[in-house]
């Protein structure tokens, strides 16, 4: 009989402390977390299981890429039990983290290519890890375009980066749009897929990444198809209800794929081989 004591208990979270909280919108906050002990390594696209002890766990995308430090950022929308309680927590409070889990954006394969990010609402959170990554290795990539939209100006996340940082990086374009203009909004108005069509990006040597509400993803994928983006260069992330995060609890499958293990990142080509049940 083997000795299992050496095997790590995958259900045991590591403790992290909330270092900084940024109020992004009325119901979205970004939490910068620091592990009390040990390193943390991940790649863009992965997620963690976040524990609020006594309330439960929720899968949350890592929305940052901060190499060399044992810290990460999570941008969380207040929804149910765990996320609501998290929103009431303060800097210095402790949470638990398991992971990183899931596959990653294809960071190796996209070297040397142009990157097109299409995000909506909180959907910019998982894309942001790759955006950070690509700016960190800026010379590995060609042009970077970011199209981001939210319902109203008040619903835009990562405003500081969107308006003041990312657009100042070389060979980078940022297009921000809202569905409904309020508070004297001067920028673009219109849903993300519409803006995408108007911008008419070239599919040449370009990989598109999209994440957002299901309806936005659906129409953005259609628009990308109209723009002749090949299916294998159109990348999205999927969301299914999760508990274990490690392919055991059996609930996050689409066909024979567990989204927690084999996803959440899929190319449109892979997606087309899955049953339509997401």
């Amino acid at each position, binding site marked *: 009989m083997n000795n299992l004591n050496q*095997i790590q208990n*995958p259900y045991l979270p590591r403790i992290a402390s909330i270092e900084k909280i940024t109020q992004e919108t009325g119901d979205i906050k970004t939490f910068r977390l620091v592990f009390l002990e040990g390193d943390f390594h991940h790649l863009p696209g992965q997620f963690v299981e976040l524990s609020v002890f*006594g309330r439960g766990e929720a899968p949350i995308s890592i929305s940052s890429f901060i190499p060399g430090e044992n810290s990460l950022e999570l941008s969380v929308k207040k929804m149910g039990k765990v996320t609501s309680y998290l929103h009431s927590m303060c800097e210095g409070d402790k949470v638990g983290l398991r992971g990183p889990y899931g596959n990653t954006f294809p960071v190796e394969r996209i070297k040397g290519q142009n990157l097109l990010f299409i995000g909506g609402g909180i959907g910019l959170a998982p894309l942001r890890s790759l955006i950070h990554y690509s700016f960190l290795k800026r010379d590995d990539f060609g042009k970077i375009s970011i199209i981001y939209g939210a319902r109203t100006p008040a619903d835009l996340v990562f405003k500081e980066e969107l308006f003041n940082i990312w657009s100042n990086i070389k060979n980078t374009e940022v297009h921000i749009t809202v569905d409904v203009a309020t508070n004297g909004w001067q920028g673009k108005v219109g849903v993300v897929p519409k803006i995408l069509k108007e911008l008419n990006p070239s599919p040449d040597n370009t990989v598109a990444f999209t994440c957002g509400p299901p309806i936005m993803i659906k129409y953005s994928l259609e628009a990308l198809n109209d723009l002749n983006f090949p299916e294998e260069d159109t990348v999205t992330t999927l969301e299914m209800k999760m*508990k274990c995060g490690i392919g*055991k*609890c*059996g609930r996050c499958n689409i066909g*024979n794929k567990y989204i927690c293990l084999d996803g959440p990142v899929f190319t449109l080509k892979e997606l087309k081989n899955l049953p339509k049940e997401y």
Partner: protein
Amino acid sequence: MSSNNPETKYFLLKKSKVKDLLNTLYKEFEIFVPVEEEGMVNFKRYKLNNNFNMEFTNTLLPPKGLFLPQQETLFTINYKKEELIEENLETSRRIIFGIRPCDSRSLTILDEVFKEKSEDVYYLQKRNNTLLIGLGCSNPQIYCFCSSLEVDPGKDSSVDIFLTDLGEKYLVTANTKEGQQLIKDLPVYFEKAGEEEITRALEIQSQAREGFSVGFAKKDTEIFRDVEIIFEHPIWEELAETCLGCGICTYLCSTCHCFDIADELAKNEGRRFRCWDSCQFFSFTNMTSGHNPRPNRKERIRQRFLHKLSYFVSRYGSIACVGCGRCLRNCPVDIDITRVIGAINHE
């Protein structure tokens, strides 16, 4: 779960000595035996001189619960000290006495899941700590259809020790080193088997495949490889009309492993636990946003069948069903996996 030893050895164990044997093993092991209570036979923890029933064909509940309990604490949380207290996973060594071939096969199927990538210590610890003493079948229940799957009801080489019923006694086959050691340590109970008994046992073992009432042909399961076709089959709609969406077929299934994880909050101490869950429940996939990828019984019953017959096969290489027949026996509306497989192929 132990190392296989190619050199198997045959012994005899008198039925009249089984209780003494259990009483001896009891000192060192936690033993689970089939016990009849409230009109059901189930594996229960053996206490000195307890009664048990080896004349059952199968237990109502599958033995998976001894490895994946219906509820299990993962750790407790001490708020004051901000620390997590891991459950003590060390258990005494255990024996399951009388596990049927279908159910021991179900454990090797569950192993695939619990070993994939991140190893599930809670399951594997129990698995590694447990010696299986299997019992061959010569009297299949009317619901059994293990012979349609890769299970031999007469002979099971995946267990540590295997018993074949010879009437007054069992022919004992030691399949693993651990099994052999156990027999070697207790010579008073096990005598060497003679040629005649071995021959008789082999005969009984080879006849075990007869006498099944339900089942299907192996080639009828091939159709499930083509997910695109099978996914849109009209049968799911038909089954959904009468399926009650209860948890019986999944909770009682030997191979279903789905669970939920949640926290319990008490004053100074919290607890994280996991407990069985079922893809037949609406809440299984319902997200906080209100979006549910499997909102109706149609999608949910399709998930159950396709998970077993298609998704599991392409992921792990075998069908996630061992033909124990529990779902068929207990489904209130008589939804029958063998009929579903037959109907898809022949109707």
